[in-house]
């Protein structure tokens, strides 16, 4: 059981000639293994800043991030070890893979660096990981440009899983994929989450998939948590006006055709 606790975290960016921007203000939540939390909000609400702070790409201006009760490391070998426990899947599979390297390299390198398997077993482990993300073994010697967006995102997931992390931050992992591929990739993430008991932070602006794939949902607005509850409560019985506004703005054919029928009567 692993838990990461974000406790009262604020992040202020100084902007030259324009004062400062409060990207996050007093954000608190706990992500435990075995649980998926959806984080929703519009552009600029602070979603990605949360991801950057969790991965220590940014440091909070105030507040703390605790892993199993202890402050997360900020440098050196301890930080590298931390980053093997908490892994990230990025939005753009065209930018997040290195065009010069084979798929094998992308998955083998985190295996070698983390030492989760002895060197002679790396190759077998690469194949096992590719199999887990439902990629054909034949992709192993290909380069990213030879793969479709959906295949590339599966490589990114395999790479994230390689060091056997406890926690995964997925920042808009399917928004750049074709619609018919999105559910497949999310379902894969969800299966792996359940099998490995991963804690997943699913960052998205899409309320429908957030509800479908999350246990809890956190709504961010202008850097503040305005609502946090079970996925169904937040989407079906939103308490905060901003959550309601997000819900009303999201396309929802179900409700639309019900309303249309009601209006015609």
């Amino acid at each position, binding site marked *: 059981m692993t838990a990461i606790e974000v406790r009262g975290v604020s992040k202020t960016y100084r902007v030259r000639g324009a004062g400062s921007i409060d990207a996050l203000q007093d954000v608190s939540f706990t992500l435990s293994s075995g649980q998926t939390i959806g984080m929703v909000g*519009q552009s600029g609400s602070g979603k990605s800043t949360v991801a950057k702070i969790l991965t220590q790409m940014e440091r909070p201006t105030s507040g703390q991030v605790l892993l199993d009760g202890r402050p997360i490391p900020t440098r050196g070998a301890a930080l590298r070890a931390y980053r093997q426990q908490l892994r990230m899947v990025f939005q753009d599979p065209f930018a997040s893979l290195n065009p010069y390297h084979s798929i094998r390299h992308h998955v083998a390198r985190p295996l070698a660096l983390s030492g989760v398997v002895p060197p002679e077993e790396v190759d077998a482990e690469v194949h096992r990981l590719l199999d887990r993300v439902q990629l054909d073994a034949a992709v192993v010697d290909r380069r990213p440009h030879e793969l479709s967006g959906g295949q590339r995102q599966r490589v990114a997931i395999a790479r994230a899983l390689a060091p056997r992390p406890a926690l995964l931050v997925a920042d808009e992992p399917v928004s750049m994929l074709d619609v*018919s591929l999105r*559910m497949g990739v999310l379902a894969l993430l969800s299966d792996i989450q359940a099998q490995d008991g991963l804690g997943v932070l699913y960052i998205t602006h899409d309320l*429908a998939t957030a509800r479908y794939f999350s246990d809890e949902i956190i709504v961010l607005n202008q850097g503040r948590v305005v609502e946090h509850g079970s996925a169904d409560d937040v989407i079906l019985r939103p308490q905060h006006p901003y959550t309601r506004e997000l819900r009303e703005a999201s*396309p929802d054919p*179900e409700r639309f*055709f019900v309303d249309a029928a009601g209006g015609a009567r």
Partner: protein
Amino acid sequence: MSDPLLSVRDFSVRYETAAPVDAVRDVSLTVHRGEVLGLAGESGCGKTTLAYGVQRLLKPPAVIPGGSVTWHDADGTDVDLLALSPDAMRAFRWDKVSMVFQGAMSALNPVATVGAQLADVFEVHRPGMSRAERTAAVVELLEIVKVGAARIKSYPHELSGGMRQRIMIAMALALRPQLVVMDEPTTALDVLVQREILREITGLREAFGFSVVFITHDLPLLLEISDRIAIMRAGQIVEIDTAANIWFRPQHDYTKTLLSSFPRLTAERGVA
């Protein structure tokens, strides 16, 4: 709804490359006066090629091996778009059919003010207008799309994404066209700004009565704003019907697949 505006018959587009690609194959569809026709399909299905093709906006190696495109003008004349001279076609575009593109940041000129870019439309298509008349028309357009005349000297980077998209809409409406083709106009916007732009489009349609061809892969959005929806796959239209029939009674397997690609927001948990 029975009043046709644009009739496309057996229309095809082929890219004459080393291995020729039939990007659009024998497409027939009619856009009616005053309707919103949704065009849904995934990247590479040919929806943008179809929209550009009927306006003859494609460059070689794209060729149109067959089909007809007939424009039924509000003045009662029928125009064969594939037979128009290049000059006549150039005059036709934007005057009768305009477009709103996805990336307002790349579609707008970063080194010209939005006022100058809107005035450009009149300079080219309405050469008889005086400078003062052009300025008055630009001010009116900025007010119509609720950006406000105060922004006439703003550059695109000084505006939010939603405002830039409003400028694109203003530009598309400048000549009061009968049809506006919108190619993923809200895809890059977040959900609240997207809703604001959709409301704007609905209001402007009520005010000006133009037809819309709305291209997107976002089927839930199309279901809400379209009168009819055409589902495109691999260059062909596999199904075309009213939005309600597409939602309640989809006929084609691919339509069902697309519908199931979106989880339901408020219904019982599960996939549509």
